[in-house]
């Protein structure tokens, strides 16, 4: 009898979840006020708060970074106030879909995979992905023969460089942030040659790179910057070509719910305006120390 009851409870939990999943509506609590252009006011913005210099939470909880300044600028252009809050990376898209916030500015690459779940604005930042290893590692001494590798456009030199990368990393342990385009890259191109360690944040990956627990790490150049410029990263360096294109996506963009066409238009206009009047370039140079803005 007890077994039967337990079994029924188990079935009920699973069925209940499935029911919720099928009848889930993306709207959250009560509709917020709107401007006449269909932009919610205040605009609720989610960021990660652990991906400097894009976004980082100070010990006291205040957020700062490129995307925080960008969000404020975009909100000013759209005539709304911003409410920016930090969200764990791996739940950031489900939170958007559940209506907890209206837009994500979190160093998120606009990939085809994510496009099935959310809409993206035009990209605002485009930087290549780089491998990083300790300076004394033999990995950093390899000459790959090219500076950039475009996955969407693999010529002979790129294919050779990719093979060389595979051979060099064979049997090594490579760290990456969980559920990122870089994790997809490792799964797709190096899944059978390296041991992949998946970190919750890039900061924790950097810690393990410094202690030598992983042989190399893969992330965005802009993401690596704070580590490589900090004290822990003094003994680390990038190696291999900067990788772009293909499954790495067209760049970093703001994500919003699929039914939010008017907000998408307003954000696209604001981002384009910020690019045209030089604000984007200025912010990029301020936070990344080079012009990482998408053209």
């Amino acid at each position, binding site marked *: 009898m007890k077994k039967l009851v337990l079994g029924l409870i*188990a079935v009920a939990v699973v069925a209940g979840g499935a029911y919720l999943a099928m009848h889930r509506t993306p709207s959250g609590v009560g509709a917020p006020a709107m401007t006449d252009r269909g932009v919610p006011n205040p605009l609720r913005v989610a960021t990660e708060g652990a991906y400097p210099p894009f976004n980082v939470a100070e010990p006291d909880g205040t957020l700062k970074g490129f995307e925080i300044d960008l969000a404020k600028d975009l909100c000013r252009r759209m005539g709304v106030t911003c409410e920016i809050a930090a969200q764990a990376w791996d739940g950031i898209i489900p939170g958007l879909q559940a209506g907890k916030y209206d837009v994500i500015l979190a160093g998120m690459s606009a990939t085809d995979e994510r496009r099935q779940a959310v809409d993206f604005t035009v990209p605002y930042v485009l930087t290549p992905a780089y491998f990083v290893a300790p300076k004394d590692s033999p990995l950093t001494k390899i000459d790959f023969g090219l500076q950039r590798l475009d996955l969407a456009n693999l010529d002979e030199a790129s294919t050779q460089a990719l093979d060389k990368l595979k051979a060099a990393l064979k049997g090594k342990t490579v760290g990456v942030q969980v559920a990122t385009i870089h994790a997809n890259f490792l799964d797709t191109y190096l899944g059978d040659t390296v041991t992949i360690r998946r970190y919750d944040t890039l900061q924790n990956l950097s810690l393990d790179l410094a202690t030598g627990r992983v042989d190399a790490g893969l992330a965005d150049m802009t993401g690596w910057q704070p580590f490589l410029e900090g004290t822990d990263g003094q003994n680390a360096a990038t190696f291999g070509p900067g990788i772009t294109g293909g499954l790495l996506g067209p760049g970093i963009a703001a994500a919003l719910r699929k039914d939010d066409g008017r907000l998408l238009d307003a954000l696209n206009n604001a981002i384009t305006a910020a690019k045209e009047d030089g604000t984007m370039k200025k912010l990029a140079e301020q936070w990344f120390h080079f012009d990482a803005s998408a053209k």
Partner: protein
Amino acid sequence: MNSPLLSALMAALPQFVSGTWLTVQLVALSLLLGLVLATLVAVLRLSHLTPVSWAARGYIHVFRSTPLLVQIFLIYYGLGQFDAVRQSVLWPLLREPYWCAIIAFTLNTGAYTAEIMRGGIEAVPHGQVEAARACGMNGALLFRRIILPQAFRQALPAYGNEIILMLQGSALASIITLMELTGVAKAIAARTFQPIEVFCLAGAVYLGMSFVITRGVHLAERRLNPARK
């Protein structure tokens, strides 16, 4: 249910299986090592030598009074910060997230189980100990033949609780890159954007494992207690 989701879940099935296997390994190994540690600590805790007893008390107090999450972080990210640790003979072990998780879980469950064991030991009627002493049993023999078998039996219901708590605590291993059941579920949910379905599946697997554990403990209780047979 829509088929793209179903196919995505089917594609993720091997990951779910390997995640479940890792969870089972982590829990089983830590519980085993933790039980050995706990028995030792419980005996030391009841020792009449004050320093020994206080050392055992200190260990129990520290590990029961701090969150398991903090313990994992300190053992994994904390210890690795020291050059002395990285140069030591222990580094091959401590550089692996797997062993760091085992160490953290073992120390944690060891502290809780030691208190459970102490309760069991103290519940053994004093008359039996006197009687055993009168028969000439001492020290290890007394513990092995008289005290511990009864203490284990007394402690079993409470220990069943600890096993289940350990199973649930093992979900924290995902923060140090171990892709156990929760880690796998989080990664798949982040990729498919279907958290409810994925976590329901993970929850059902945990439910199944807990069910097996409670049944197992129940059976063991019946077997060890002749009066309830």
